[in-house]
């Protein structure tokens, strides 16, 4: 065969393949023309897995089905974002119509890729004014560039859970409010045993469950992105200060290696053997659920809760914290979007539903009305977190097109700092900025 012929064949093959590859990628347009009154079955995926949480979902759904006899809801639990993303892209009959995810970080990816339908038209159709229903910070983290592709479904605030009995034993009367006091208290609460610990005041390393860099950065009021949308880690001195303070705490409590070794003796974060429950740590940076989980595990000590301490120079802002929450959205590929909206509307905006669900899984409710509801069960430990959630300076991590990748990049750098691998923090942050900008540009 002459060479040109072969080339033509090759081109034809390539063309055929690209045709094949693209033929199947079309997505249904955002046509929400289905009749929400027709008999329909919705696929609903969520991430909860503990038996009590799964039961709460079932009850919530049962209430919804009673109010909407034409809609059946098929519930699948314990779904991670990877699987949700994968299923949304695959589409088809088995793909979910309605999704809820814990990972607030994914909102940018969900909205930017149009994985989820924009809910603004649905809100308008139902005459719901979202600014009157949801707190402002919650609306911010559920949308991306004006595309409200998710709504908040309950809400998490991060604070400090502490062992009151251990505090008393160490002669500490109240939870620390500033970072320097926090460092002192953590040291006081630390009891050594051999070359390890009997009890550590706090597991300060970034793998210490919820002790993530983003949680701490919120206490410093750090701003991740500048007005130009560029990564701002080096631009905002708060990041370097936070990293330095955390490294200092790690060193004062015995150093990275020794702490990590102790951390490896901890039980699973979601099991009854959580180190806070077992008394291995006296303070835990955690969400609003921890106090009630510890009680359910039957801990023999008293539990206190407080906001996380703030840097000394920001003492006036004590009370703020990191907030994030579960999000809920409608798959843009779903052919039952109007029916799906009924479910989303019910679960996210119906005061009774939100309050009942919040009570069942001990999360902070996500609507203004539910926050004020008399039916909301508020223990003193829980109230701390309601206050954190309402604090005007509480903050979240912004939604970006690359989902949570920028946070992973930042965390990766933070791991290096706590370990002592980084000598020049500002230079390292500048490099991290570049990486984040590159990744976000790639994801757009």
């Amino acid at each position, binding site marked *: 065969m002459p060479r040109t012929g072969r080339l033509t064949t090759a081109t034809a093959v390539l063309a055929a393949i690209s045709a094949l*590859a693209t033929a*199947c*990628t079309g997505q249904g347009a955002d046509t929400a023309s289905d009749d929400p009154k027709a008999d329909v079955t919705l696929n609903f995926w969520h991430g909860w*897995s*503990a038996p009590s949480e799964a039961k709460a979902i079932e009850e919530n759904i049962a209430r919804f089905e009673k109010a909407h006899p034409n809609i059946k809801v098929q519930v*699948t639990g*314990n*779904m991670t974002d*990877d*699987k*949700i993303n*994968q*299923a949304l*892209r*695959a*589409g*088809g*009959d*088995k793909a979910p119509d309605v999704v809820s995810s814990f990972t607030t970080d994914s909102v940018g990816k969900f909205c930017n890729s149009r994985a989820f339908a924009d809910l603004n038209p649905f809100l308008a159709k139902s005459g719901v004014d979202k600014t009157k229903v949801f707190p402002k910070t919650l609306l911010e983290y559920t949308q991306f560039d004006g595309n409200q592709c998710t709504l908040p479904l309950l809400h998490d605030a991060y604070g400090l859970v502490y062992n009151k009995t251990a505090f008393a034993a160490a002669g500490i009367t109240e939870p620390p409010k500033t970072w320097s006091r926090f460092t002192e208290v953590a040291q006081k609460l630390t009891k050594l045993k051999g070359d390890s610990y009997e009890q550590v005041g706090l597991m300060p390393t970034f793998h210490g469950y919820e002790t993530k860099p983003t949680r701490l950065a919120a206490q410093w009021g750090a701003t991740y992105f500048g007005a130009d949308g560029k990564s701002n880690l080096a631009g905002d001195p708060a990041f370097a200060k936070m990293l330095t303070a955390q490294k200092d705490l790690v060193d004062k409590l015995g150093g990275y290696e020794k702490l990590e070794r102790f951390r490896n*003796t*901890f*039980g*699973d974060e*979601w*099991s*009854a*053997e959580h180190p806070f429950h*077992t008394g291995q740590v006296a303070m835990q940076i955690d969400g609003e659920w921890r106090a009630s989980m510890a009680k359910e595990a039957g801990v023999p000590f008293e539990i206190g809760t407080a906001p996380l301490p703030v840097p000394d120079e920001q003492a006036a802002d004590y009370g703020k914290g990191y907030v994030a929450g579960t999000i809920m959205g409608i798959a843009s590929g779903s052919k039952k979007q109007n029916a799906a909206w009924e479910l989303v509307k019910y679960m996210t905006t119906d005061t009774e539903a939100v309050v009942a669900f919040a009570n069942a899984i001990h999360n902070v409710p996500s609507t203004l009305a539910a926050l004020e509801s008399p039916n909301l069960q508020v223990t003193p430990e829980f109230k701390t977190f309601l206050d954190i959630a309402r604090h005007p300076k509480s903050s979240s991590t912004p939604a970006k097109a690359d989902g949570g990748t920028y946070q992973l990049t930042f965390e990766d750098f933070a791991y290096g700092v706590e370990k002592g691998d980084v000598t020049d923090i500002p230079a390292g942050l500048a490099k991290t900025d570049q990486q984040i900008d590159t990744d976000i540009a790639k994801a757009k």
Partner: protein
Amino acid sequence: MSSAHTGRRSSRAVLHWVGVHSLGVAAALFFVLPFVFLLLTSLMGDRQALTRDLWPDTWEWGNYAKVWHTPGFLTWWRNTLLYAGLGTLLTVVSSVPVAYALAKFRFRGRRLALLLVIAMMMLPPQVVVIPMYLFWAKQLDLSGTLWPLIVPMAFGDAFSIFLLRQFLLTIPDEYLDAARVDGCGEVRTLLRVVLPMARPGIAAVALFQFFCAWNDYFGPQIYASDNPAAWTLSYGLESFKGAHHTNWNLTMAATVLVMAPVIVLFFFAQKAFVEGVTLTGVKG
């Protein structure tokens, strides 16, 4: 031979025996101790599994019942058996004729075909996973099922073809010629003459394929992960610790339960195993 000589020799032999066997015991400890610790931990209580104790305070046999009754555990078993069983059957049925043709037919492009088989054999599954995933999930809407894992096995597995071909090469052509002279077509020659002689090779390939599927983690993660009803043991086990908030004792009990059938099978089919493994090497 003088008695002194024999004495020296025999004392050297005794030393040698002692040396070799103590090395053997040391190696045996390396291979066996992990199993022992695993079993011991699987019988500990929640708290104790997180301590440095090596011996259970209380023997929690109930751990195994708890794991067994974990939602989904039985489904993982069923799926794994289906994937490994059906997959193995399909692989053998589809690979034997190909291997036979490659070993015993003369045709143009035979060497090229063989090279391509080897290339496929060397190909990490991750290389083609993106288009394959899009193909199964988007075009055929079969993600969340075991079919994307099983169906390809009906089209010959490169490693099995290669091994079988190596094995079939050792069957002398005279047997085939004799069958052909008796008027057998190629299909009948294959079924009547080649298959019985190739039984050890087929057994080896089947075992390999079975374990490959049994142990596969990447495939189920890509194709089956979005539907818990399609999870296999490997994938389920990995999710087990997180999904059920279990501590190490239960995780180890689950691990033991996943390892056990393979080991039991080994004791029943020890000869085929060893022969199979040997075959892969010696014919290389």
